[in-house]
């Protein structure tokens, strides 16, 4: 005969049963079903992208690269369709990046310079690469575990590249908010080369405008701005294109703009494989640049830049890809003259 449960036993049973119910609510599928359902991890990436671009948040995170760790603060707000963002280094460089709608400002106290770049007003603010069917061909996206990170339930999603043209990622995505609490960027052999971990994170309904004011003092700084009205693309007599691209990369955008501090128009092509993107800037080589050694490589953390000269034009490729990928793409750029009128064969 089963005796009635005592209240304390009921408490423990309640806790256990409730926890079971919670787990059941969280995911009703068996692990086998989960693993077979490959779109689910990709959905987590979509949710993560949505969270990063549409939610208001204020956090500090550590950025590890090349054996150095630095702390940064990020504040992000979407209000009345306008994106405001502030990214500031908390130790060391003192640099800040502030976005207010279509205006991007870069404070570089170490160079006593401020760059102000005005984007075209009609440019889509959510024009980032979207995961598509193609992406799955070049990345293996999996959820490898559901684990707790710093008292939050997270989904650990790995994005493994299928070739060496791109990086891989390991993401700890918060179950509740879809924010990436920890991000590892890995090279093609799986070694972590960059890591971002949130130390604190607040998602709030309201962030005041004052949160987006720079802390750095700009007295005596050089201000470089670009022309707010970009030259018309049609003015270019040559259309530049990449003759070949790494597998999976396609052109996603093409525009002409001026860069801060320069009056010359620059062609800006964007190639993407759905996750990584590479910009290629094409501008006539200026006389003062002729003395610079070419080609040149640079890195910005794990991102890569590569510059070369083709047909008297300076070609610069920048992207969150390995160095050889930007070099490959840049070297593929070629100007295509439109055929002269009247010389076309029938």
């Amino acid at each position, binding site marked *: 005969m089963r005796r009635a449960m005592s209240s304390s036993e009921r408490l423990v049973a309640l806790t256990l049963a409730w926890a079971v119910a919670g787990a059941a609510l969280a995911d009703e599928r068996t692990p086998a079903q989960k693993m077979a359902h490959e779109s689910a991890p990709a959905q987590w990436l979509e949710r993560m992208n949505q969270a990063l671009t549409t939610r208001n948040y204020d956090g500090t995170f550590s950025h*590890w690269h090349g054996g150095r760790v630095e702390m940064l603060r990020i504040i992000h707000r979407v209000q009345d369709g306008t994106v405001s963002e502030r990214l500031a280094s908390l130790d060391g460089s003192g640099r800040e990046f502030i976005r207010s709608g279509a205006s991007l400002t870069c404070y570089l106290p170490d160079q006593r310079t401020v760059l102000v770049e005005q984007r075209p007003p009609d440019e889509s603010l959510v024009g980032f690469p979207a995961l598509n069917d193609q992406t799955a061909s070049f990345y293996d996206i999996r959820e490898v*575990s559901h684990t707790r990170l710093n008292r939050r339930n997270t989904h650990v999603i790995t994005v493994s590249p299928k070739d060496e043209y791109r990086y891989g990622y390991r*993401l700890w995505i918060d179950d509740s908010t879809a924010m990436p609490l920890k991000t590892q960027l890995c090279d093609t052999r799986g070694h972590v080369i960059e890591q971002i971990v949130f130390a604190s994170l607040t998602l709030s309904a309201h962030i005041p405008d004052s949160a987006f004011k720079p802390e750095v003092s700009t007295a005596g700084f050089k201000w470089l701005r670009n022309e707010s009205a970009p030259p018309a693309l049609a003015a270019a007599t040559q259309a530049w294109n990449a003759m070949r691209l790494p597998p999976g990369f396609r052109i996603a955008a093409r525009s002409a703009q001026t*860069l801060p501090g320069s009056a010359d128009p620059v062609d800006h092509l964007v190639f993407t494989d759905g996750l990584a993107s590479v910009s290629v800037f094409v501008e006539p080589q200026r006389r003062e640049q002729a003395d610079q050694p070419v080609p040149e*490589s*640079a*890195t910005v953390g794990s991102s890569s830049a590569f510059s070369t000269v083709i047909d008297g034009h300076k070609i610069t490729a920048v992207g969150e890809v390995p160095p050889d990928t930007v070099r490959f793409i840049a070297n593929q750029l070629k100007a295509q003259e439109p055929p002269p009128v009247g010389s076309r064969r029938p």
Partner: protein
Amino acid sequence: MNEELDSQLSAMFDDELAPEECELLARRLSRDEQLKARWGRYAVVGAAIRSERGVRLNAPLAGLVSAVILAEPALAAAQGARRTGVRWWQPVAAAAVAAGVAAVSVLWLRAQAPLAGAPLSAHLTAPTATAPGAAVVPAAAAGAPDSYVVPRAPAVRAVVPSTELANYVVAHSVFSSPVTRRNLLSAFMTGEAGSAAEEPRDDAQGNVQ
């Protein structure tokens, strides 16, 4: 109240019950929520007596662990090849899903090690120890006809003028995907443009020194 049973429970909790009685009681314990609750309270009594500062006596820890485990495949299905020389372990035939599940567990365990050299895409292989202080060893990707070697420590010089690079980075950032954009801009904000990456030194277990 079944005194004999509860008395056995108390003895088993103290590891003072005969093995054959343990077997029987273990089976009951796993299925009987009341018995389990009592067992749990025995543990609380001990912890309270030892008066450990900061340790919560009503933590939902057990329930949370239970919930996670409930969602996992039963261990019997996950067992791999039988090990020899085990006297009391009763092996169960491995299921076809075993290899996949075991590999996932391995990857999960590796993921906890900070910045370990765990192969990201090696969901089919066991983890291998990273050689401490490994030098740059370019490795051609298997099956890639074009030699597309990605050196582990790209040695590059900052030759591109910083302001120009800043322009490119800012202009490009609009077109990055949200998470990669954060990597790019963070690196830029911390003034990492152009610096050569230094390698983290791993010990044999993949722990960063």
